[in-house]
């Protein structure tokens, strides 16, 4: 098996798999426990709009996708703040708006751009050394923030009202979780694609949630599943010439079914 990593692109792909698998599955714990799947999907679509704009303007698509992810999070936060509007329709509105922008930008590009498809469906073997560096830097920011504010993020995820009542700035931390989710999606979008990135965030944490009622164990099990499936999917896709993103997600879903058999009560 080691011979497949003699190629540079496979070594990059492996590093991307570990990075994306790890970061997605850590943030996934908050997404699963707080019920943020839909906003996650919305942010993924918004980041894709940013990617297309990057290609259109000829700037690094990661920069524009961060921008779009944050605009999406910001719009939803503004419109749902102080109970003005329910979260679900707010996401629905801006989700569609962002996707409309993406389609509009594609229409404005007079030429066909094959690389766009790797952001749509994911192409882990096309991750370059520069991409990896940006991904690593953003990954360190995400995981570092989680480490620094671990207690506060946990309390706000569990019981936001109580956290606020006991002197934690719950609103700030709720926004921080969404911002971290946005960065995570931006890190992952090239490797697994806009359509499948949510799976890499939600499934590992859901598997962990089936097996434990201890939050700390969840933070260990979730990246274990995420990284294992990413590496496994990468290898399988290489040997059998399959799309990598889809292979990773199918392995994850298979793990999910297995963990469901061992589901804990409560």
């Amino acid at each position, binding site marked *: 098996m080691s011979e497949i990593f003699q190629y540079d692109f496979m070594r990059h792909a492996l590093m991307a798999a570990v990075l994306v698998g790890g970061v997605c599955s850590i943030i996934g714990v908050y997404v699963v*426990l707080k019920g943020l799947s839909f906003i996650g999907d919305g942010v993924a679509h918004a980041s894709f709009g940013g990617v297309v704009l990057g290609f259109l303007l000829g700037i690094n698509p990661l920069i524009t996708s961060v921008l779009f992810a944050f605009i999406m999070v910001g719009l939803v936060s503004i419109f749902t703040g102080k109970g003005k509007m329910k979260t679900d329709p707010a996401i629905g509105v801006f989700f569609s708006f962002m996707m409309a922008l993406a389609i509009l930008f594609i229409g404005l590009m007079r030429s066909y751009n094959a690389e766009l498809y790797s952001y749509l469906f994911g192409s882990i073997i096309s991750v370059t050394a520069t991409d990896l560096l940006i991904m690593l830097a953003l990954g360190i920011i995400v995981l570092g923030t989680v*480490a*620094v*504010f671990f*207690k*506060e993020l*946990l*309390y706000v*995820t*569990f*019981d936001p*009202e*109580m*956290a*606020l*009542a*006991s*002197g*934690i*700035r719950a609103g700030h931390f709720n926004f921080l979780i969404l911002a971290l989710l946005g960065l995570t999606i931006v890190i992952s979008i090239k490797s697994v694609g806009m359509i499948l990135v949510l799976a890499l965030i939600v499934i590992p944490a859901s598997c962990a*949630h089936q097996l*434990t*009622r*201890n*939050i*700390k*164990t*969840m933070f260990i099990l979730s990246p274990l599943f995420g990284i294992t499936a990413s590496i496994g999917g990468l290898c399988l896709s290489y040997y059998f010439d399959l799309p990598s993103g889809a292979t990773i997600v199918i392995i994850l879903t298979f793990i999910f079914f297995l963990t469901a058999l061992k589901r804990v*009560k*409560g």
Partner: protein
Amino acid sequence: MEPVIQIKGLTVSYNSEVALQDINMEIYKGEFVGILGPNGSGKTTLLKAVLGLISPAQGEIRLFGGPVDAAARKRMGYVPQKGSIDLTFPVKVFDAVMMGRYPLMGLFRYPSRSDRILVEEVLKGVDAWHLRGKPIGELSGGEAQRVWIARALVSNPEILLLDEPTTGLDVMSQGQIIDLIHRIHEGKGLTVLYVTHEVNNVSCYLDKVAYLKKTLYAYGHPNDVIKVETLREVYAGEVEVIQGVDRPLVVVGDHCHV
């Protein structure tokens, strides 16, 4: 003496609906205050306003002589209404109670030995130490309430706010929770704000009773406040007050005698 909680002309509204109107109350250190009133009378709103979870439309609340801010909140413990806590959340009793210490720890700090000792003491104090390893989803109603009281106490608060801690519990568990709150109040000299529907089983412990229905109908010592005229106004109906051995007892909605 300056009151620990001072409520001046407090009006709170949700969108255009007024929930509380022109409330004036002063609560002094060490008082055990019962807040009563029918459903939707603004009892929970009052607690939330005191905690700063809801901002007043008019008027002002002062805590410890200062504004309602994060520093003041760290000196208060809160036991929210049943149902506001996600019981499927994967956390064990010990860790859930430890969260009550989080706001007092610095960034990057993880629970220290003294934090752990404190959690142990508090859990033993509410007779829930044996539950420490249980997921919160596996607790009975009475056990869960004791755990949330422990979480509120573990930050060593000066004021304890409880929102209907006995609702939905059987009579035995209700008695245990009330005895526990009474013990905490006596033992620690805490100021306690206690929202409830059931006045008779707690009125012997209360220093003051507040009857709320959007406005404050009556506020004072139970013997002075629990009067049939006041209660008929607040509950708009069938209320009787019977003189018990040492205190008045309230009978609400005695349909057998209508």
